[in-house]
């Protein structure tokens, strides 16, 4: 039997400190969040203002990451781009997490026909590669940032649904659910106050682990022109902008690419760390 994580904060922190990779992940993500918050303070340039007289300049003290074909400072655009990235990650995680957990808990808790129908729909979504499906949705809705967020949310909920269904199935069979039913609790109360909290820890691990995937998918859609549109400093769009200059002006695509790689790495390390921290076998 384990204690709720919130109450057992000290032990959680102890496990976190022991896990070097989790610390690295946390540092990257904290750094990423801080740059998003303080972007205007960290740079004296504007992300959208063009200055063709300084276009395609190599990295220098003035422009540490160089400038792009319109003379915009790339560091400045990456900093502002992190705001977009964080927006994308948070909204998609919330929306797809909500859809996935609701579908999973309803399917697992009610079982039978409800379970069959909901899980077959989930299987249908899983049958397509998620990037292709997201592309199809984004193309259908029309390419812009909001539609891209909707499209990714729609294809990203399936793993959460499967995990929370499995958990709900397991918890439904526990004696305390029957006990609370015998006390007159209705389905809604059981699902929300007794099943949902128990499914949260495995779902939370998946949510963090998939944040990296979300950033990659969003950047891919941006790169393909199906997501955020220029002149938005979205990282995928920036990589795409620089691809015709890749040979001679490598910095235009490379630095946003590194930013993507770094943040994805950070989320993956953090996700692994969270999984280890929440693993009951490692806890006491």
């Amino acid at each position, binding site marked *: *039997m*384990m*204690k*709720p994580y919130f109450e057992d904060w000290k032990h959680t922190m102890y496990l976190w400190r022991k896990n070097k990779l989790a610390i690295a992940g946390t540092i990257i993500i904290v750094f990423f969040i801080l740059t998003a918050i303080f972007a205007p303070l960290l740079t004296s340039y504007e992300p959208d203002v063009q200055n063709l007289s300084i276009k395609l300049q190599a990295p220098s003290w003035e422009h540490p990451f160089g400038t792009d074909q319109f003379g915009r400072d790339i560091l400045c655009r990456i900093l502002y781009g992190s705001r977009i990235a964080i927006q994308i990650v948070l909204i998609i995680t919330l929306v797809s997490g909500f859809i996935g957990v609701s579908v999973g808990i309803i399917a697992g808790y009610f*079982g*039978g026909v409800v379970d069959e129908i909901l899980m077959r729909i989930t299987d249908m979504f899983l049958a397509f590669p998620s990037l292709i499906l997201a592309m199809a949705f984004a193309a259908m809705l029309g390419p812009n940032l909001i539609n891209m967020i909707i499209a990714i949310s729609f294809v990203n909920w399936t793993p959460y649904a499967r995990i929370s269904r499995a958990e709900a199935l397991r918890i439904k069979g*526990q*004696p*305390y659910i*029957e*006990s*609370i*039913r*015998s*006390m*007159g*609790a*209705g389905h809604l*109360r059981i699902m929300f*106050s*007794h099943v949902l*909290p*128990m499914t949260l820890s495995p779902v939370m691990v998946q949510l963090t682990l998939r944040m990296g995937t979300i950033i990659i998918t969003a950047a891919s859609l941006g790169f393909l022109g199906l997501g955020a549109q220029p002149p938005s400093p979205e990282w995928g769009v920036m990589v795409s902008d620089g691809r015709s200059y890749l040979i001679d002006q490598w910095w235009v695509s490379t630095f946003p690419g590194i930013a993507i790689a770094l943040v994805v790495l950070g989320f993956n390390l953090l996700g692994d760390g969270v999984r280890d921290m929440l693993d009951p076998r490692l806890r006491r």
Partner: protein
Amino acid sequence: MQMRGDLLNVSDLRVVFYTYRGVIKALNGVELWMNKGEKLGIVGETGCGKSVTSRAVMRLIEEPGKILDGKVIFENKDIIKMKESQVQQIRGNEISMIFQEPKSSLNPVLNVGFQIAEVLAKQNGTKIKKQMKAAAEMLELVGLDADRVMTMYPHELSGGMAQRVMIAMGLAPKPKLLIADEPTSALDVTIQAQILKLLHDLTDTMGNAVMIITHDMGVVAEFCDKILVMYAGNSAEYASTEILFKRPLHPYTSGLLKAVPQIGRTDELKAISGTVPDLVSPPEGCRFHKRCAKVMDICKKERPRFIEVEPEHFVACHLYSDKGVN
């Protein structure tokens, strides 16, 4: 239908479970009744349908089980015919239940006080926080140190403490009927006696009826006013505790009593031969006939009716069918 008890009347209750092996006929026309404030013990071997009966009374039978037929009249209302929302009003408020495994019957991530308060909040339609004081009072009532136990989690409790918490939870809404499904089976003997005494004294002062399910004849002898013996999904014999122990009529009941060790008894303990029949394909006629020492031809063909052979003493056995009053 005849109303024999003024609190609960169960008649012809049939429950089946659909499994891959076939249809398990778990309850085959169970009859029982209870008066207000009465303590009824249901005894029988493992798999005879004791627990299924208690769950069916609260309509807690889950897929793949199904209540096929029968009436569960609780205070003139038939629970079987009610809407789910109406049954939810009865569960917890009018009938509550405590279970065999007290520690796993409590939510492991919520503290004890919260769980008791939640039950009270549901009954009174108030916020959970407002019921914390009442929850603490209930814990004191079952002999626990409320200040300490309120904020404890189930894994920090001993088995006996957890069962006390369950009793507090079950009695907190002041139900008219408390169903206790083998409340002492998971506890060691010294704690068993304490818990039974607590349950007995509390229900006496609160005046609610108790249906206690057990396979322990000692428990029923101490605890109950009336006893129902069940066999393979049927009511076999029903009488007051005194009469049943003194003058068991059903061959199965007398077999059960012969198998119980007693201090001062010198004769050999006799086990009932054979095992509980497979309920997918139960024997024709009386379900006990293959193990019965007094089997007759009619037992293999016809199912005995549950009849009153002497005042307040009901038996389902062909040996007595000619003595039937009704």
